[in-house]
């Protein structure tokens, strides 16, 4: 019995210390360990944080009171102390009291929560509109007012390090699994409307520093807004299971001053134009393979794997497949990349002619596939026109 008592005492001390650490000094620990919700970078995220802390304090106080009474009873009302059990079995008064008090507490919590929710719901008067579309497994961002579209994939060093038994220490990758090849650039101080939707399955767009997440659902457009006050890079990731690449579709928001944002928009438009304008050029096999490897990593590797073997029964192998080896299948191969097939998405919209030419050439001349076939952007263009 003594041992038992000591264990109980140790455990209750342990619990008290743990909850004290957690509840009483969240800011200190937030910095050191990352164990509390972020206060974020927007007025809303601050309010969400405050609401979170309020409810945390409320339940902590209730917990201390209830568990306090319980432990008092456990220590004092035990048979080993020779007490005789009381006989009472109900008391209408206390039962009414402890029904009404919790009711009052939840009403007190619900009022500020309702107000906050109403503010989060109001997307009116936004100055910039972004549409975020979830794909398996990447994000597409349409800057509606600018007519600008960018795709955002997991950064290449994270792709390498995240392969099973890659031998690469994740710590060496820049912001492992939370870094993209292209960031969503947004201006600070503007009310930005972010619509979410999806192309294939349900995803969820979540950057904790903005204070919310929202599902991206095929066939639906969800409406949200944010005003980012502080310049900086804010990271998040997909928050709804969306298949095997669910853990590998990060979101990076780069908040910059208005002027820099405008410059970035112009620059990106020019860059995208030149990217799409190499469609009438011809490339060598080596050039196409080099470019194709990057395209493969960003778009194909998640399913077809780094070794081109796919996953048996789910994702077909490219290495050694007739589609990627026989000369007469070249048109079918290009067609499948553009328009998709079964669970394979259509890449025609996401990739330029030269991207598709490069990746098709790459897979036809990599691993055991040694066809020597060279596909040029104009072949892709011709396939699109058919």
């Amino acid at each position, binding site marked *: 019995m003594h041992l038992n008592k000591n*264990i109980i005492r140790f455990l209750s001390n342990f619990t008290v210390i*743990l909850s004290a650490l957690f509840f009483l000094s969240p800011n200190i620990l937030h910095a050191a360990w*990352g*164990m*509390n919700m*972020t206060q974020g970078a927007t007025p809303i995220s601050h309010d*969400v944080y405050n609401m979170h802390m309020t*409810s945390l304090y409320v*339940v902590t106080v*209730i917990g201390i009171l*209830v*568990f306090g*009474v319980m432990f008092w*009873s456990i220590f004092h*009302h*035990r048979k*080993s102390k020779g007490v005789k*059990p*009381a*006989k009472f*079995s*109900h008391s209408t008064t206390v*039962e009414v009291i*402890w*029904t009404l008090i919790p009711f009052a507490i*939840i009403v007190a*919590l*619900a009022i500020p*929560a*309702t107000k906050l*929710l109403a503010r*989060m719901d109001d997307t009116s008067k936004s100055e910039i509109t972004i549409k975020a579309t979830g794909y398996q497994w990447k994000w597409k961002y349409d800057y509606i007012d600018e007519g600008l579209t960018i795709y955002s994939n997991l950064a290449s060093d994270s792709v390498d390090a*995240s*392969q*099973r*038994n890659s031998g690469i*220490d*994740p710590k060496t990758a820049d912001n*492992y*699994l939370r870094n993209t090849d292209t960031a969503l650039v947004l201006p600070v101080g503007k009310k930005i409307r972010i619509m979410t939707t999806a192309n294939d*399955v*349900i995803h*969820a767009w*979540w950057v904790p520093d903005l204070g*919310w997440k929202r599902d991206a*659902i095929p*066939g639906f457009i969800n409406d949200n807004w944010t005003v980012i006050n502080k310049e900086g890079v804010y990271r998040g*990731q997909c*928050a709804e*299971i*969306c*298949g*095997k*690449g*669910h*853990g*590998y579709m990060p979101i990076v928001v780069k908040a910059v001053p208005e002027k820099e944002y405008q410059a970035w928009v112009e620059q990106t438009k020019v860059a995208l134009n030149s990217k799409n304008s190499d469609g009438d050029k011809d490339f060598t096999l080596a050039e196409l393979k080099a470019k194709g490897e990057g395209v493969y990593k960003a778009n194909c590797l998640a399913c077809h794997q780094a070794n081109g073997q796919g996953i048996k*029964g*789910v994702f077909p192998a490219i290495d050694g497949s007739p589609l990627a080896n026989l000369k007469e299948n070249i048109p079918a191969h290009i067609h499948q990349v553009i328009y998709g097939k079964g*669970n394979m998405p259509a890449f025609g919209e996401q990739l330029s002619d030269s991207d598709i030419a490069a990746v098709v050439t790459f897979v036809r001349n990599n691993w055991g596939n040694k066809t020597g076939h060279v596909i040029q952007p104009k072949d892709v263009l011709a396939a699109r026109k058919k």
Partner: protein
Amino acid sequence: MSTIAHADHDHHDHKPTGIKRWLFSTNHKDIGTMYLVFSLIMFFIGGSMAMVIRAELFQPGLQFVDPQFYNSMVTVHALVMIFGAVMPAGVGLANWMIPIMIGAPDMALPRMNNMSFWIMPFAFALLLGTLFMEGGAPAGGWTMYPPLVLQTGKAFPYLIFAVHFLGISSIMGAINIIATVFNMRAPGMTLMRLPLFVWTWVITAFLLIASMPVLAGAVTMLLTDKYFGTSFFNAAGGGDPVLFQHIFWFFGHPEVYILALPAFGIVSQIIPTFARKPLFGYASMVYATASIAILSFFVWAHHMFTVGLPINGELFFMYATMLIAVPTGVKVFNWVATMWKGAMTFETPMLFALAFVILFTIGGFSGLMLGITPVDFQYHDTYFVVAHFHYVLLTGAVFALMASVYYWLPKWTGNMYDEKLAKIHFWLSTIFANVLFFPQHFLGLAGMPRRIPDYSVQFADFNMISSLGGFAYGISQLLLVYIVIKCVLGGKKATGQVWEGARGLEWTLSSPPPYHSFTTPPKVTKALMEY
């Protein structure tokens, strides 16, 4: 103490022996035993999947399994634990205890009882068989959201039919319980004298009958969407992927209480026994349980706050969800008031029951926080949610089941279990369950989504702690098996009364009870049930 029943009836029986005793059993105790053993096996199968998950999450980077298989583990772990471990354990306890607690010879529908058990091994053969199929087991999460679930390969129809069979089994079990309680109570066993465990099970049975057909409808629509060209959930065909979530959670939230209410009942039996004092507020316990059950049908969309509901919908579901805290609070206060001024002793069932009260309440606290819609936009689909529902289901429902096993094991076997080992099992379970799940609150708040096989390095420390807790918790459960086997094989003989402070009909029978529990209905008096 009355001395009502005796084993003398047994030799008039022609009970089958050997394998036939189990295959063709219509005896509530044998079927109850089969349910409990089945549940224990599933607990270990589901648990080993959890070990795979924790091993992969032990450190950042991908070490052991591919993301697709990881997703399968997450999916099948949940299905096995919910439908294979916790629900059958509850039904097993109901089978064993309800006839004894209400003074009946057996369940009202013994043949159906046999069938509802024997469906389950087949259902799980379908489900677990998919692990060995080309393309692997279902990997879209146990919630089976379309369109993702429609990408499942050959495993898809097996998943759907496994769910159908499990639903049929549960509904038959529920009908049996309702029929038994309403028709077979001994004279004097009025409704308001029913032990709380029986009450919570009657209410659970109604929840099952109301919610399981809804799930069956939802998965049938998935089946026709996949194979027969319908577009219930396909936006491109005019359907609505969110509709599935509404239907699923209309089942899914009552399901949470299907897992939790029998646990409430168990704890309400155990605390009075070891406090040697009547349950505080019996009537309010019954009403609170019923209110929770009714409210559980009006809160489903709190699982869906981020799908983009209209604000009025979100407000309604937020208020309804927070309201559940009131009857749940009443139950916790009543348990504490039952302890107050009692004369407590701390045998293992009581220890598990006390841990249940504290840890389930912690899960309730995070549940209240999750119910606050604007903040849920941050919590949703993170490890904060994972921590929440494991506090409610593991240190909640499962701890109550452990408590019940220790509480009734002497009654079932006629032998006392090894108290010293059982206490070690309790402390190991309690400490490591907290090491396992408490840090997951931090992970979720710091921004780690659930259902990911690999994570950013900032989450490494707490994941490692959580995994270590997980392995230790998993290994500790082997002790339970050892204790149970040891107790079945022998040990100090248990009296009929077993526990000094126990009240109710089950303690008036011998340990183990006779084959047909009560062949002559006992007379239930007020004195029998009270202190």
